């Protein structure tokens, strides 16, 4: 079929395939750069769908949301506009691991994102299922849908999430289906294989949903939202909503017995599932088997929204048969009468090996072809959205001839996420964690704007007028930091023996900002959204300085470039596996090379000695 004889749906700077969290961020980023974009989705109803947990944020994930927001993205704004509960987790555990988490109204979240996209002039939302990526001479040209329509574009971003050749498994029942009973995506996987991509299979799962009226809340522990909560985005405007509570309860010995007695009926243990599941989000049957000596497991009941009775059973992901799910639920404290609305399920889907991508998330084989989100082997809405934004900015850069947009591991969680994926690849759905960030003390929630907003302006995804606001913030921060260093605190004020300064007082581990405010009431003048950053940067100055030294060491490895075109196959001192991996990834620096799985430090040492040889 020649290009001329078919119906052409349009010619764009960019086409985004899929309108999940990655796709929406990607399309919006491209549009913010002033470029035209077509957002193709199999179902317009499924735009920004949250098929699993009704929440956004948490450790590392919340940080990513703040970074997305600093780069002008959607997720933080949408979470602010749709939350039913806002909480900061990990308070008291350290400055950089404190994490904002929103419980959201799923429908409100979708509606918010859809409205923004619909109101964005450069975005054309189109319903259709993409079955083919059209390429020509190593260059992407567009896509073709199942109806034969051709869409042309300079760049294409593929964000198929968990839909590609997906199967939903409950007990012995296996159905070709996307999440939530939506259509799977057929044909594209075969097309990608034909184009030379290497694909794999992953598995993830979701717990059952139950009816609110069947829950005995009086036997559970209530978890309320924070009263003086903070938000993800400085752009969101919403009156304080009524916050809904979540509820904490536990499994019992009976739950364990039911699971053990029915393990043979589990598709996982019966070998029905080929894809690898996430270690950090295991199913309840997995937890019972792997932590056999643990008497009970925590279960959180989370509302799915304001105007629905559905409640999400967090910590209870399962693919056991429906009847087992019901008995399991009814063995949980307070769920004796549980009325199950949707059963939990496992879902299996195709993903591409992300080591086939550059740090810009662009294919190494085809110019202009990008991949983002769960198709790259990640898990989680936030990880998907972050990649979508990143791919969107890079597609825009490609379309306009700008240099790629890349953040280092020492600059952003986004940098950690992308570098981990394209350098190491993944054998299980990849989840971001604060421990994956070597320099987390610098990658805080409170300084996300300061870190990234200027980069967003430079990349063209943030309006330059926002810089003025940032500059003002910076002046305020500097002013108060200096003030704290100079503000004398008398023994009468502090109860200490000697006169000290407010900064020195704050640097005592046991003194919080709140307590300091009692000593120095004028600190109430500090605007709320900057107080945390000022407090942290003063209180932990010593630790932050130490982390900066580490970053310096890291930068040396990152900036020590490896020339392109090294013939790895001839360096016999490097293990065979490492030679293949190095040749495949083609790392740009020693830092990147050292993070490739299968490449040992000994291999790196050989490479260093080999490349610095004086006679070449």
């Amino acid at each position, binding site marked *: 079929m020649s290009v001329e004889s078919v119906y052409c749906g349009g010619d764009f700077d960019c086409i985004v395939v899929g309108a999940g969290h990655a796709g929406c961020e990607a399309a919006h980023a491209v549009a913010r750069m002033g470029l035209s974009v077509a957002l193709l989705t199999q179902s317009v109803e499924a735009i920004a769908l949250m098929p699993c947990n009704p929440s956004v944020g948490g*450790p590392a994930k919340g940080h990513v949301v703040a970074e997305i927001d600093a780069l002008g993205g959607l997720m933080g704004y949408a979470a602010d506009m749709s939350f039913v509960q806002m909480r900061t987790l*990990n308070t008291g*555990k350290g400055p950089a691991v404190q994490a904002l988490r929103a419980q959201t109204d799923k429908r409100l979240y979708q509606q918010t994102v859809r409205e923004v996209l619909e109101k964005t002039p450069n975005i054309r939302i189109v319903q259709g299922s993409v079955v083919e990526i059209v390429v020509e001479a190593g260059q992407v040209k567009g896509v073709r849908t199942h109806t034969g329509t051709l869409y042309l574009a300079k760049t294409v971003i593929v964000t198929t999430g968990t839909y590609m050749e997906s199967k939903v498994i409950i007990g012995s029942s296996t159905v070709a289906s996307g999440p939530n009973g939506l259509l799977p995506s057929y044909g594209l996987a075969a097309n990608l294989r034909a184009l030379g991509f290497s694909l794999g299979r992953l598995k993830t799962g979701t717990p059952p949903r139950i009816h609110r009226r069947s829950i005995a809340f009086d036997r559970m522990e209530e978890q309320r939202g924070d009263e003086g909560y903070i938000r993800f985005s400085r752009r969101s405007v919403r009156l304080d909503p009524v916050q809904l509570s979540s509820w904490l309860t536990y499994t019992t010995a009976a739950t364990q017995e039911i699971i053990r007695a029915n393990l043979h009926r589990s598709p996982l243990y019966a070998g029905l599932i080929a894809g690898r599941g996430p270690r950090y989000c295991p199913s309840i049957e997995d937890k019972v088997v792997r932590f056999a000596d643990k008497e009970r497991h925590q279960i959180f009941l989370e509302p799915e929204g304001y105007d629905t009775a559905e409640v999400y059973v967090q910590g209870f992901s399962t693919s056991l048969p429906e009847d087992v799910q019901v008995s399991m639920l009814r063995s949980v404290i307070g769920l004796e009468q549980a009325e199950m609305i949707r059963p939990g399920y496992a879902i299996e889907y195709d993903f591409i090996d992300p080591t086939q991508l550059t740090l810009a998330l662009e294919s190494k084989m085809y110019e202009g072809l990008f991949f983002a989100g769960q198709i790259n082997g990640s898990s989680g809405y936030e990880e998907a959205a972050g990649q979508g934004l990143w791919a969107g900015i890079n597609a825009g850069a490609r379309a306009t001839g700008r240099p790629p947009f890349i953040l280092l591991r020492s600059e952003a969680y986004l940098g950690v996420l992308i570098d981990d994926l394209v350098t190491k690849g993944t054998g299980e759905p990849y989840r971001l964690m604060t421990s994956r960030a070597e320099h987390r003390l610098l990658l805080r929630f409170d300084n996300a704007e300061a870190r990234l907003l200027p980069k967003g302006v430079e990349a063209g995804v943030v309006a330059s007028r926002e810089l003025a606001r940032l500059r003002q913030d910076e002046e305020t921060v500097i002013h108060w930091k200096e003030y704290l260093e100079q503000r004398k605190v008398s023994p009468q004020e502090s109860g200490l023996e000697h006169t000290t300064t407010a900064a020195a007082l704050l640097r005592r581990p046991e003194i919080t900002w709140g307590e300091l405010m009692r000593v120095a009431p004028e600190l109430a003048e500090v605007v709320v959204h900057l107080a945390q950053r000022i407090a942290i940067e003063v209180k932990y100055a010593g630790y932050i300085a130490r982390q900066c030294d580490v970053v310096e060491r890291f930068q040396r490895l990152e900036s020590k470039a490896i020339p392109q075109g090294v013939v790895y196959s001839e360096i016999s001192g490097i293990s065979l596996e490492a030679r293949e991996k190095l040749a495949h990834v083609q790392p740009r620096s020693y830092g990147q090379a050292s993070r490739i799985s299968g490449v040992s430090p000994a291999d790196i040492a050989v490479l260093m*000695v*080999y490349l610095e040889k004086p006679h070449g």
Partner: protein
Amino acid sequence: MKSDVIAAISTPRGEGGIAIVRVSGQGALRIGKQVFRRARQPFRAKPWRVYLGEVMGQDAEPLDECLFTYFRGPRSFTGEDVVELSLHGGSFVAGRVLEVLLTKGARLADPGEFTKRAFLNGRLSLAQAEAVIDIIRSESDAALRNAGKQLRGLLSNEVKDMRAHLLQVMAHLEAQLDFPEHDIPDLTRAAVATRLIQVGDMVAKLAATVRAGRVAREGLRVVLAGRANVGKSSLLNSLAGQERAIVTAQPGTTRDTVEAQVNVNGVLVTLIDTAGLRESEDMVEKIGMKRTLQALDNADVVLVLLDGSEPLQEEDYELLNLTRERQRVVLLTKADLAICAELPTGVEALAVSAKTKQGLPALGGQIADMAVRAVSGEGALLITNLRHSRILVETQSLVTAALDTVGAGWEIELVATDVRLAYERLGEITGETISLDVADAIFAEFCIGK
């Protein structure tokens, strides 16, 4: 790997029983055969066999009798084709042979290039390469034994053990931070502290062997201190001369010190004379004092020399005072003359005479005792490498910092961050943490032909 042919004399300069010229690289056999002639022709060199023949000069004239050995890669030291020509000792013949090899297409090897190629071809690990330097350099049994231990991986095992402890603490803390709603049992501050103290002790114990390790590698530093003309040089000469195994006797690194190395009961002893320190005038007096102090600082043992033939002077008292806390032997020199010096109470001295050798055997025995005690250490393994000792000292302070963080009541995130720093730093010893200077540092220490 494709590589050019390198050649070098692999035995030490100077007179010796044999000299070996080593040739390595693709074509080593072809080049080697061009300078070698066997009685029976044609010569088919089978690998790993030794052939007797003659080595020839530029004009095909025989230079020397020669043993020819061909090691076929990868089963050779470098992993490449290697030819070794064993000649009669003396650098002259070896030098001539090397010159001829260079005209036949070989290139003079860089320092450490043979070992580097062995490393690049996977014949040696980085840690082993480091141990090879120590073996080449070892000048005493103690140093050699210790390098052998390192080559067998003893150090790596100990470092891995310490890191495993740190990793366990990290894993626990990180799980609490990343999974706040997963009721992971908290690791208490006390438990973290206990683990850290344990690791701190392990690091400290290893770091404490640095001195013993240095003694094993560089020798026990014995400094001779005393006024001018008290007899330091004569004592040094008699001590050095009395031992048969003089290793070197050369002017020290500064003009003002003279060093001699002797091997006492398998332990290397470096005698350092601070001669001339106080022989300058007025202003320089102070500088001289400073130098003496410096020399004393670096000493393992101080020999305090007092002139026995005359009453003690102010400087003598000063010196006795300065060295009160040090490991020292007080000597009354010129014991062949009448002893006039009176020692302060509590100070014992050995009377010696360079002229009559009186007291010298006893002094030699004491030094030997101290030397052996210094290297016997507590642990089985001694740290001999400067890079290792630097990392251990840094790790020690990082573990201490982590303990301070725990003790002061800072949040566990900061504890976890500190522990990670210690964990990463420690890994630089074994190369598990990559650092740019490792490879450079190691191969910079080699000399040509190794």
